[in-house]
């Protein structure tokens, strides 16, 4: 049984931290001003704060914080759905090659000096195309066995990684190469209302799709044959999970680069709190993932004078935590 306190926390914490994220930063904004700026968007208040403060809060911090929450929530729910579908707690969002393909597309866009919107589109399309390649490579007479999916994913990821290497090799080492390298480290720096508006629909749609099939995921964890014997159309649901997850991951990578470990670690944290039932687990990963990435991004942008790449931070936090989980469970999961 799930206790009430964690559930309340899972609802309150993301909202409270979102608010908190709006006043921390290199330029401190008093909490009451943040509240008034936000309320001023809805209610007619006297605008007695400086316009530059309003710009910082509404144009820079709010989109960035919301983006962090969407990406964190999206990657976490995707990881949880994949771990269920692949019946393996070591699986994460990038297992079918979406990250490698999206990254390759983004690097190519940087090489061709495309603008931000174009980069986001190219990276997103590459991500979808990469997973489509994996999916059809794995298909054997109208079924997609899990093992074939995993192996095909390795092949496709390796292929796009090689392409990425090629792109880096021909990139100008003085300007383009650093840009590509920095971009690949992952960052939410430069998220605008525009990029948020572009990334939001696929992420929200993907999350909604996964929430819709969350009980069927329970049945899928019993294996394809058993699920089929219970009348579940396994190929339909596998396809749907892959589609939703890919939309989320491709949108995430296309807007903020490679953010590793979130999709692997957060589902484990959620499972420790609410148990393995996907009906509860998936909503929990949304909240925990959103909160986690929001906090880590706050650290990334405030801890030092510069900006720490977000992907570096999530890996630095995620890897030791996963090591701790490994030792604690001795490899016997969940």
């Amino acid at each position, binding site marked *: 049984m799930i206790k009430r306190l964690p559930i309340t926390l899972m609802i309150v914490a993301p909202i409270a931290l979102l608010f908190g994220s709006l006043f921390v930063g290199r330029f401190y904004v008093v909490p009451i001003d943040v509240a008034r700026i936000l309320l001023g968007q809805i209610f007619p208040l006297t605008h007695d704060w400086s316009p530059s403060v309003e710009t910082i809060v509404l144009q820079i911090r709010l989109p960035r914080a919301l983006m962090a929450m969407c990406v964190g929530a999206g990657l976490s729910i995707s990881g949880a759905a994949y*771990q*269920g579908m692949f*019946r*393996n*707690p070591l699986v994460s969002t990038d297992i079918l090659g979406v990250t490698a393909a999206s990254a390759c597309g983004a690097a190519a866009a940087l090489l061709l000096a495309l603008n931000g919107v174009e980069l986001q589109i190219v990276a997103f399309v590459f991500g979808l195309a990469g997973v489509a390649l994996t999916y059809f490579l794995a298909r054997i007479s109208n079924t997609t066995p899990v093992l074939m999916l995993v192996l095909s994913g390795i092949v496709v990821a390796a292929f796009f990684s090689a392409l990425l290497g090629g792109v880096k090799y021909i990139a100008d080492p003085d300007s383009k190469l650093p840009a590509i390298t920095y971009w690949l480290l992952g960052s939410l720096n430069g998220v605008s209302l525009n990029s948020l508006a572009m990334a939001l629909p696929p992420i929200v749609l993907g999350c909604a799709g996964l929430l*819709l*099939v*969350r*009980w*069927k995921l*329970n*049945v899928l*964890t*019993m*294996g394809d*044959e*058993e*699920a*089929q*014997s*219970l*009348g*579940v*159309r396994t190929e339909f649901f596998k396809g749907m999970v892959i589609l939703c997850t890919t939309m989320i991951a491709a949108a995430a990578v296309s807007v903020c680069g490679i953010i590793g470990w979130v999709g692997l670690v957060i589902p484990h944290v959620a*499972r420790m709190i609410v*148990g*393995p*039932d996907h*009906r509860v687990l998936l909503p929990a990963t949304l909240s925990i993932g959103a909160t986690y990435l929001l906090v880590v991004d706050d650290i990334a942008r405030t801890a030092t004078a510069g900006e720490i790449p977000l992907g570096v931070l999530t890996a630095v936090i995620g890897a030791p935590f996963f090591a701790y989980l490994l030792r604690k469970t001795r490899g016997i*999961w*969940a």
Partner: protein
Amino acid sequence: MGLAQPVIQIRDATFRYGKREIFSGLDLDVFAGEVLTILGPNGCGKSTLLRCIGGVLALDQGTVRLKGRDIASFEANARARKIGFLFQQHTPAFPFAVLDVVSMGRAPHLGLFGAPSSKDIALAEQALERLGLFHLKDQPYTELSGGERQLVLIARTLVQEAEIILLDEPTSHLDFKNQVLSLRTIGALAEQGITMIMTTHDPNHASLFPGKVVLMNQAGRIETGSASEVLTSGALAATYGIEIAVYTMPRRDGLTDLILCNPW
């Protein structure tokens, strides 16, 4: 009452893996409340036959009819409301509570994106109660013994409201006591009118229940009939390649006979 209609009617059934014929020209009627026992050595195609009866695998030739209707014409959902399947056991990756595992049996009764309601959960609890497993309902399925898991999966087929339960080697990996418990449950459900079809390695299981026996061997030869007709030392020797003595012994209740097969 006239002649009862068979629940499962198999006519001229043939199945091939590539060029290898697993069985051919098989005719068989299974009636409600019977336990059909499928015997044979490893690799002879017991599981294949079971999957063909369940409509999971398609025959190359012939038909399997479920209450007169071709099994191939059923939608997966409709089929799962009639037929419950117990595959050989595996350990799931996640420790679902027993009640969650059992309520998965409601899947064929729910819509595309549906999840069990409190009514479905109540049905799952009833099924657990019926098999004396209610005390396990909140335990992690992964921490149960093999025997308990077997019974939990049987409870799940009851939640499916299956009229036919197919069991693939329900006694393998179980200790002696749990084999007995499992077999008793199978017999009890058959008495309640559910048709049970199981594969097994132990010919001694064949005469435990009223129902027919199918003896398969590697060469695609199949014998069907009652236990006393099929289980002869000649047929067993031809099937397993070892000499086996067959004894007939009265059951403890004195009403029927047991056919005991012993190689010593």
